[in-house]
């Protein structure tokens, strides 16, 4: 058994049954692992009739054939489920150490079904898999619980939910190793709805490698590439991701105050430079990673991992807050409560605009960094307005009569990057299968950094080709499962060869990208089956209709229509965004029935 463990662990919390059975290796060949395998299994297990917070929804944890090999960044893992926030297909992806241990435990997949009568946690050890009573643990916050269950970085790893997940917040995350997160789309609520508090894991298996010599050569070449590239060898270790703040702001793509503005006067105060100067303790890394982009930050009140660029933006510019200490504290609190920080910060910014415009009666106002902590607590425990905010910004804004003030796509809150300043990014956010997601093909490299080459960020024609390649490539990487920062220095042809060397199955570069394309199309079919149409491939009206007011981006809106038309054709979909029969045959997806409806645009 090379690469894959070839085993699935299947736990039914309703009946208490614990089963293992073989992984379908033909399925593994086509979908590899991680996001791919998770999506494929989700297709079979969770259909349109399933309510996302009911016992019929399923959590599918997956790792990939490269996980645990020790190849650079081979620590990541995924969870697949139907999202309680968006109703779309969801996979969320996390780093740290849990994924490595999951592989060592000897499984490719862990399926969790049903609902326990009372809170439980799962313990997976080499000699036994068992369910334990978690009544005493219910209510505990993430850090305390992680310690209590015996977290030991390399030997015993804890994955859990905090109060946010317990209270079924639709923007709750599943946390692992304390402060890493399977965040977007609210998987924490699914776990909470099953009365599952934690999954603790210990393992001892080693991942088999088919061609050791080839594999070692590839590790060596990768090490050279990572060391030679200034992004992975200097920029990320020294400054982390927050260093993007000043750059994105400078070009006028830093959404501010719920996207009312696209530049933030306080950007310098919440920049990577300020973080490094005033609050950084040191950097840190996930398992088997030489890049070391993690920040450890400290204020008078807290010390913890992060904050990342997206989080700093979400609690910062999005809320008009320039107090970096308050943002760091909010990040630590959000992690401890178990929230998706992007959705949490974005939702708070939305609530601030609703409040300023008197749609709701609240003391929330842009710039009120002093209210972040209280608001997050209210959201986690569903107190007062927090109860509505815990549902995410779209349900919040809709309830109070102003859905257009929710900055979401398909219900998922938008990340930093005002697409009025990055047209290709706009197309990406409108078409990502899990909603407004930048991690499914980020155009930052091409439109801002000039890597591999500067493509004019305002150019509309031809953008779809890059977006599609990025989407396919990142889907492939999400199934291996590796960290996308590796791909800043290492090309896809290396990943294809590592996969081949580890598994003993030949994947050409094109085959690997085709795996990504297959995953993307299956996700699309899943959403179609759920009733989504091309109407949902859109952006908040503000970005389509209100010209950006600031800086070099002033006057621009997103010209989505022409990009979308080109995108559908380039993907081999019809004008309604439905994959053609020919495309499905090409990708070996022709067995899938979607039952999509007729649609008018």
């Amino acid at each position, binding site marked *: 058994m090379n690469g894959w463990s070839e085993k699935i662990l299947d736990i039914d919390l309703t009946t208490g049954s614990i089963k293992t059975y073989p992984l379908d290796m033909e399925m593994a060949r086509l979908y590899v692992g991680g996001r791919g395998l998770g999506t494929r299994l989700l297709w079979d297990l969770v259909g349109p009739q399933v309510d996302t917070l009911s016992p019929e929804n399923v959590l599918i944890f997956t790792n990939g054939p490269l996980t645990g090999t020790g190849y650079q960044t081979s620590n990541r893992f995924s969870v697949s489920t139907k999202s309680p926030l968006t109703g779309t297909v969801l996979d969320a992806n996390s780093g740290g150490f849990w994924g490595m241990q999951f592989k060592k435990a000897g499984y490719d997949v862990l399926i969790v079904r049903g609902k326990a009568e009372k809170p439980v946690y799962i313990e997976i050890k080499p000699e036994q898999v068992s369910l334990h009573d978690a009544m005493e643990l219910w209510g505990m916050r993430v850090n305390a619980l992680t310690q209590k269950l015996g977290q030991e970085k390399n030997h015993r790893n804890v994955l859990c939910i905090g109060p946010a997940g317990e209270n079924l917040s639709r923007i709750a995350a599943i946390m692992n190793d304390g402060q890493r997160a399977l965040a977007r789309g609210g998987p924490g609520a699914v776990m909470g709805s099953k009365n599952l508090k934690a999954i603790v894991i210990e393992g001892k298996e080693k991942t088999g490698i088919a061609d050791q010599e080839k594999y070692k050569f590839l590790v060596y*070449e990768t090490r050279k590439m990572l060391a030679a590239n200034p992004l992975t060898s200097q920029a990320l270790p020294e400054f982390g991701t927050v260093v993007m703040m000043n750059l994105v702001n400078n070009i006028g793509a830093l959404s501010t105050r719920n996207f009312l503005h696209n530049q933030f006067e306080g950007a310098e105060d919440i920049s990577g430079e300020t973080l490094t100067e005033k609050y950084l303790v040191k950097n840190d890394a996930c398992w088997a990673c030489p890049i070391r982009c993690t920040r450890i930050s400290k204020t008078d009140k807290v010390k913890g991992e992060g904050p990342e660029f997206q989080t700093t933006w979400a609690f910062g510019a999005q809320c008009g807050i320039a107090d970096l200490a308050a943002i760091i504290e909010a990040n630590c609190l959000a992690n401890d409560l178990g929230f998706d920080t992007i959705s949490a910060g974005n939702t708070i910014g939305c609530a601030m605009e609703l409040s300023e415009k008197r749609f709701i009666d609240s003391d929330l106002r842009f710039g009120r960094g002093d209210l972040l902590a209280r608001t997050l607590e209210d959201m986690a425990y569903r107190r007062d307005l927090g109860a509505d905010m815990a549902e995410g910004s779209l349900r919040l804004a809709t309830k109070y009569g102003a859905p257009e003030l929710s900055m979401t796509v398909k219900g998922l809150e938008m990340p930093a990057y005002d697409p009025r300043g990055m047209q290709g990014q706009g197309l990406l956010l409108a078409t990502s299968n899990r909603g407004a997601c930048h991690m499914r093909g980020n155009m930052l490299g091409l439109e801002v950094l000039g890597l591999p*080459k500067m493509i004019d960020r305002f150019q509309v*024609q031809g953008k779809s*080709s*890059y977006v599609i390649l990025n989407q396919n490539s990142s889907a492939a990487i999400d199934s291996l499962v590796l960290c996308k920062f590796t791909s800043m220095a290492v090309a896809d042809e290396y990943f294809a060869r590592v996969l081949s060397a580890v598994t003993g199955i030949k994947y050409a*570069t094109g085959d690997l990208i085709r795996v990504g394309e297959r995953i993307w199309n299956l996700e699309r079919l899943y959403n179609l089956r759920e009733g989504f149409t091309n109407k949902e491939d859109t952006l908040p009206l503000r970005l389509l209709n209100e010209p950006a007011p600031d800086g070099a981006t002033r006057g621009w809106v997103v010209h989505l229509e022409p990009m979308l038309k080109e995108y559908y054709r380039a993907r081999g979909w019809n004008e309604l965004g439905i994959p053609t029969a020919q495309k499905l045959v090409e990708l070996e997806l022709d067995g899938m029935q979607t039952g999509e409806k007729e649609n008018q645009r």
Partner: protein
Amino acid sequence: MIDERIFETFREIGRDLYAADMISSHGGNLSIRLGDHVVIKRRGSMLGNLKPQDLVETRIDKNDSGVALASTELLVHRTIYQQTPALAIVHCHPRTAIAFSLSRDEIVPIDNEASYLLKKVPVVTEEFPSGTPQMAEKVAQALQNYKIIMLRGHGSFAIGQTLDEAFFWSSTLEESCQIALAVKLINEPFIEYRKNSEGYGKW
């Protein structure tokens, strides 16, 4: 209507290829993928001196440019776009690389830059090298796993996200072959300076 910025890129890369002696006056070709279309040089035009009217656009799945002129090699380009993740293709005639392709099935660079970037360049062969479906299939098939390949006696096909990238691979290959040629002339025992170099030939 082809965006002016796109034309500019064609013009610059074409000019650079000609200046580097990697194409003859009317030889070679450049193309990019634009959604589900291909933009390619018109047959009979000069890459070294492109004008806007020298670029034609056609669908990827068939030639509907209305112009019986889109280069004889349009089929190869379309096939490559259908079968690989390429977004840009540079096809040129790098002289020294062509010379080496005549006596081997793969070119394995010995200089530092090309070892690092290319590792190995396969040579494919086809009896009637220009414009046939068989040749198109063979070239596209090889480009599934390599970003630049040689068509024996004919020239190189390089793919990338951008024309720049594909040009980069082409230029690196020719540079590498010129170095290898000089090494043959110098004709002294090769001193291996690279660690794990046996891995390159197995790329």
